[in-house]
Every structure is written in C-alpha cells, then in structure tokens.
C-alpha cells in the first residue's frame, strides 16, 4: 500500500469537492436550515390544546374546575358550548378536548360519592389523545387533593403520599431528546446522499476504469475517497451539533468526549453505507433507490420518532440493525442523563462493529464489483 498514492487520491478528491458547486450548500447550508426548521417541530410539546368546557352543573365546584383547566398551560379553553355542539366542533377540528361536567356533580361530592367528569379527546390525533387525557386526569386529581386538603380530611387517615419525580429531563421537554436525534438524522441523510453518488459518478463516467488499470489498489482508492468526505462530514457534524445546542438551548449534562466519539463512529457508518450503495449500484438511479430503501426504515424503526418500546416485540430486534438506533441512544444518554462510556459501552461496541463490517464489505465490493 502506497501512502503516496493515497495522498494523491485524497488531493484529487479535495480538488473535485471544492469545484462542486452544490456540495457546500448541501453539506452545510441545507442541514442547518433543516435543523432549525424541523427542530421547532420535533421539539414542540403538546400544549395549548383548544378545549371546550361544558358546565352543566353550574356550581362553585364546577366553576372552580373550569378555572383550573383554564389556568393550565396545556389547555386553552376556547369554547363553552352546548353539549350538542361538541360533535361538530371536534369534527371540524376546532377543539381537541372537551370537558363535560354533568349536572349534580357538587351534590354528589357533598354526599361523599364519586362524581364522574367526562373527558372527551380527539382520538384521531394520537398524541392529543394520550397526553391530553393524561393531563386532564392530573388536573382532576390535583383538584381532588386540593379539595380534600381544604376540607381538612386525611389528617388522621392513612394514605399514600406518592412523590413522583422525573429524572434527567424534569420539564419533559421534547426538545432535549429530539434535537440530538434530529442532528444525527440530518447528518446521516446528507452524508449518505453525497457518498451514495460518489463512486457511481466515477463508474458512469469511466474514470473508475481508467484508475484501475493503473497500479492503484482498491484499498488505496477507498481510503483516498473516504477521507476527504469524512473530514467534511466531521466539520458538518460539529457545526450542525453546535447550532442545535445553542439555538435550541439543549442542556448538556454529560461528557463531550462521549458525544464526539459516538457521533464520529455513527458518521463513519453512514459514510460506509453510502459508499457501499455507491459501489454496488451501476447507475445513479439505482443508487438513489437503494438509499431510499435504507433510509425510510432508519427513520421509522430507529426510535427517533416512534418509541422502540411501543413496537411489537417481534419487530424490536429489527431496530438493532439500524445504526441510527444506537447513535440516538448514545446521544440521548449523553445529553440527558450524562451517561459515560461505561454505561453506554454496548452502544459503542455495536456502532464500532457496524463500522468495521460495513467498511469490510466495502473493500470486498470494491475488489469484486468495480471492474464490471
């Protein structure tokens, strides 16, 4: 293996990269733009749900309950309609939640009975349905507790005093968990998009063939090709990550080294995958299709958007074969829990294994397929 030839190949690659007008824009501008744009979306927490309150009781209790919903951040009471109007309001999407306080609620409470409160959620929006109903239940629970306390009960009676505490992300802000994942996702797409075309371009133009009748060896070619892209990718990574952290104010409790090593490993797997795609595709069209085939499952099954815990047990193992899955775990661990190398060792080993396997496959593919 000739270091001199590898340097030569890298020099050539850099020249070409520099002269490519679109590349800089694709590698830097677009990811940053996307990060900011999408960051707001993925970081949005369910809040300000348009709510309707139907108070059929019209007592001080019911009015107090109404007020407690209005005071909450999660709900915005926009309507106080008649019960018959609820269907239309929800059909047209004007409200997401409706609270129905039936007649006789206060009377039932005074008698020591359990008084039902209707909470109607828009099930066509899953987040609203689960989270919204959860919030509503919590508000009602607090209302109960306040009422009990005000009446001086439970002083002498036994009960459970549950202290429910959220660790690592006390505000449960989505931004803290989604932005790191978004950074990884954006970097992955742009790198794979660029690498995916890298070799196919040369094959289609015939420059690949010309290079291979010379003494250039497949390994030299790969190293020479990958290194400039890797360097560009690292720079992109750092820029995008920094923008993400500072723009969205993502708190960082962990060790920088964990994040850096994790992201670099992940980036290597993305480059390797893009390269593999490029090597096994004969036309740019094929490369494109193959990439799409790989990227869609990465998004859906990696836990980036949809929690892996919520997937059927039979499908969960699939997520293990997606590098993004592990990268997200590392990122979330490092950012939110301040996890170190020890805690995340499994993830790191898996990513490293991915990188080795992918590049190994790339070398084999180079030897065999490049010449056809």
């Amino acid at each position, binding site marked *: 293996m000739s270091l001199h030839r590898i340097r030569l190949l890298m020099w050539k690659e850099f020249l070409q990269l520099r002269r490519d007008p679109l590349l800089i824009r694709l590698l830097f501008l677009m990811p940053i733009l996307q990060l900011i744009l999408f960051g707001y979306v993925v970081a949005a927490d369910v809040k300000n749900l348009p709510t309707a309150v139907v108070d059929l009781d019209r007592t001080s209790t019911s009015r107090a309950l109404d007020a407690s919903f209005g005071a909450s951040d999660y709900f915005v009471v926009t309507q106080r309609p008649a019960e018959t109007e609820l269907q239309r309001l929800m059909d047209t999407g004007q409200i997401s939640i409706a609270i129905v306080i039936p007649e006789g609620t206060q009377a039932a409470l005074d008698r020591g009975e359990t008084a039902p409160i209707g909470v109607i959620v828009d099930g066509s929006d899953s987040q609203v349905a689960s989270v919204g109903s959860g919030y509503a239940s919590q508000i009602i629970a607090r209302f109960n507790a306040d009422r009990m306390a005000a009446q001086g009960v439970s002083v002498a009676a036994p009960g459970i005093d549950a202290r429910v505490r959220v660790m690592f992300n006390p505000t*449960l802000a989505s931004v803290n968990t989604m932005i790191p994942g978004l950074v990884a996702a954006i970097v992955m797409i742009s790198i794979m998009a660029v690498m995916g075309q890298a070799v196919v371009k040369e094959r289609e133009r015939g420059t690949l063939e010309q290079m291979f009748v010379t003494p250039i060896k497949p390994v030299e070619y790969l190293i020479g090709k990958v290194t400039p892209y890797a360097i560009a990718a690292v720079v992109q990574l750092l820029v995008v990550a920094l923008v993400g952290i500072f723009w969205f104010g993502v708190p960082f409790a962990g060790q920088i080294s964990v994040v850096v090593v994790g992201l670099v490993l992940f980036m290597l797997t993305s480059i390797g995958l893009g390269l593999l795609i490029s090597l096994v595709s004969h036309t740019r069209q094929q490369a494109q299709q193959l990439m799409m085939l790989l990227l869609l499952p990465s998004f859906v099954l990696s836990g980036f958007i949809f929690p892996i815990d919520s997937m059927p047990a039979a499908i969960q193992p699939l997520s293990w074969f997606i590098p993004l899955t592990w990268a997200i775990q590392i990122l979330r661990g490092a950012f939110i829990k301040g996890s170190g190398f020890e805690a995340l060792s499994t993830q790191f080993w898996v990513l490293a294994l991915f990188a080795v396997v992918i590049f190994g496959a790339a070398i084999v593919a180079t030897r065999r397929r490049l010449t056809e």
Partner: protein
Amino acid sequence: MSSLSRIGAVVAKEFIHLVRDRRTLAVVLAMPVLQMLLFAYAISFDVKNVSTVIIDTDHTPASQAYVRSYQSSDFFTVVGTAGDLSAVDRVFDHNQARIAVVVPSGFGRTLADGGQATVAVYLDGSEPTAARVGQAFSTALNQVYGQRVTIEWADTQGLDVTGFGQLEPRVRTWYNPEKRSSDFLIPGLMVVIIMVVALQQTAVSLVREREQGTDEQLAISPMRRWEMMVGKVTPWTLLAFLDLAVITVVGIVFFHLPLRGSTLVLALGAALFVFCSLGLGLVISAVAPSLESANMLGLLLSMLPAFILSGFAFPLASIPVALQVVSCLFPARFMVTIARGVFLKGAGFGELWPELAALGGYAVIALGIAVVLYGRRRR
C-alpha cells in the same frame, strides 16, 4: 386536439421507459406496499408495558400488597427488583428500566399507625412520552391505592365517609375508541411513503432528458413545455394512485383501519396529492444542475419534510405559526388531514374542501413554476 396527442405521446414514452426499467417498477410498485406493511405494524405511540423496577426496602405484607398493584397493572411491566436506593442510578444509566418505584422501610408501620406513607416514583425523562404517561399512571395508581387504603381503614374504624367524595375522570376517545395510535398513524404513513417515492421519481426525469441530450430533440419539435411536463407526470400519477389504492386496501384489511368518510373525497384528494408531489419533483428537476444534484435534492426535500412537516408524527398545532406556514409548502400536510379526516372522522366534502382546494391550487402552481424554470434553464 393535437395537444392531447402530443401529451399522449409523452405518456406512452414514459410508460415504455418505466416498463423497461424493471427495477424502478419494482421499487415504485412493491416497495411502498412492503414498507407500509412493515411500518404500520411497527409504529405506535401507545405507551404500555413500561419497564419498571421495584425497590422494596420494607418487606412487609403491606409493602408487598402495594408492589402487587404494579405487577397486576397493564401499564407497568416489572422487569426486576433491587435492594437499595443506589440501584436507581444504575438502572437508569444502563437503560434497564424506565420507572423505579422505591418503597421505604417503615412503609407498613406508617400505614398501620394511620399516617401517610411516602413512596418515591422515579421516571426516566429521556423518553418524554413514556415519562409523561408514566407520570399520569403512577399518580392515578397511587391515588386509587391510597383511597382504597383510606376507605378500608375508615370501614374498620366505623367512620363516616362523607367528604371523601372525589371527581373521577371518565375518558372517552372519539374517532378512535380503542385509542390505537396505528389508526392515527397509518393514514399519515400512506401519505409519507407516496410522497417520498413520487417526488424522487420525477425529480430525475427532466434532468435525465437533459443529460441524454434528448431534450434538444424535443425542443425543436412542436411539443410545448407544459405538454411535456403534463405527459411526464401522468404515468407516475397513475402508478402512485395505484400504490395508494393498494396501500389503502392493505390498511383496511390487515390493520383494520376504519373507513368512515367519503371514499370519493379520499380518491380525489389522493389524485391531487400525487399530482402535487410530482409537480414538486418537476420543479426540482428543472432547477437541478445535474443528475446527482437532482437525486440529492429529491432525497433531502422528500424524506425529512415528509416525516416532520406533514403532521404525520408531530403535532403541527403546537409549532410556531411561521413554521406552520412553511409546512404548507409541502402538499403532504394537506393530504394527511384529508386522510385522517376520511378514515377516522367520517369527513366528507363539506369538511375537507379547503384542503382539496389547497391541493388543487398547489398542483397548478407547481406545474407552472416548473414550466417557467425549465424554459429559463434551457436558454
């Protein structure tokens, strides 16, 4: 009528391209269906079986009874027990569980003495959705358990239970009574898959002509630019439509997706949506300087926006208004609303006409821009 015959010629040519390119055909026809099957089965926002670790330092019958209430709950899945508080950090660090319940020693005695026994429930906030729902459930579980303890005690004491009245939320979920997030997600998933596939296919079509040089040939013919574009878009529209139809059937048959609204509106919306996505692809095609940049742009503009800006997985109502406007640049947003409306809410023309109008306008505008840009490119 010669416009029609010219358009027809382009349509026929594109079909021939397609039929000869078997790999693309397989991708366009089979992949969406396969992915739909896989993803629809996999994706869900439903939180259940949340891994829980119980740390019981009391070891009394009372504490064991308390622990059993977690074990018998559908929501919590007890994956293990531990001996002391220090285990909590380790459990969360290594992602062994998402919830840790700590029962302090003296729990049983406090209850027997008539006091309020403290219990600590720790939630791993790195998975906010699970944590949020976990919060609600643990609060509810403890409230119910606590009330039961109080009432049992009151019974044994022969106490008056007045004033113990509580409000109890009765949750009703409309449109999706079983609260299956799959019903919510699958209509969106269909839209996303089609958009990703459709946009990418057309993104390269015009560029391919340019690179092969056949566009020069076409330019000197009587073919008008808009005729060529309409012709190019049509076969893909038909294919994508076919895809959508198959996916819908799959969704209904395999995933029990209800179809409560107007099928006509769904079909009309689908046709318009596909036309829009393809039009967007044509704009990219007209703008991109080379085949690979067309490919890259197509990928970048279809993948993330489809997932994030369409309302598929992330609620659009909660984002800044400026971004909501940007989301309107992607036709997927409207189609997701239409799809959800028709499948789940039983909506029809009356409710969804704004979205349909938006799609129609979008298609015309996209096509128009593509025509203008393409013409300017060529000069």
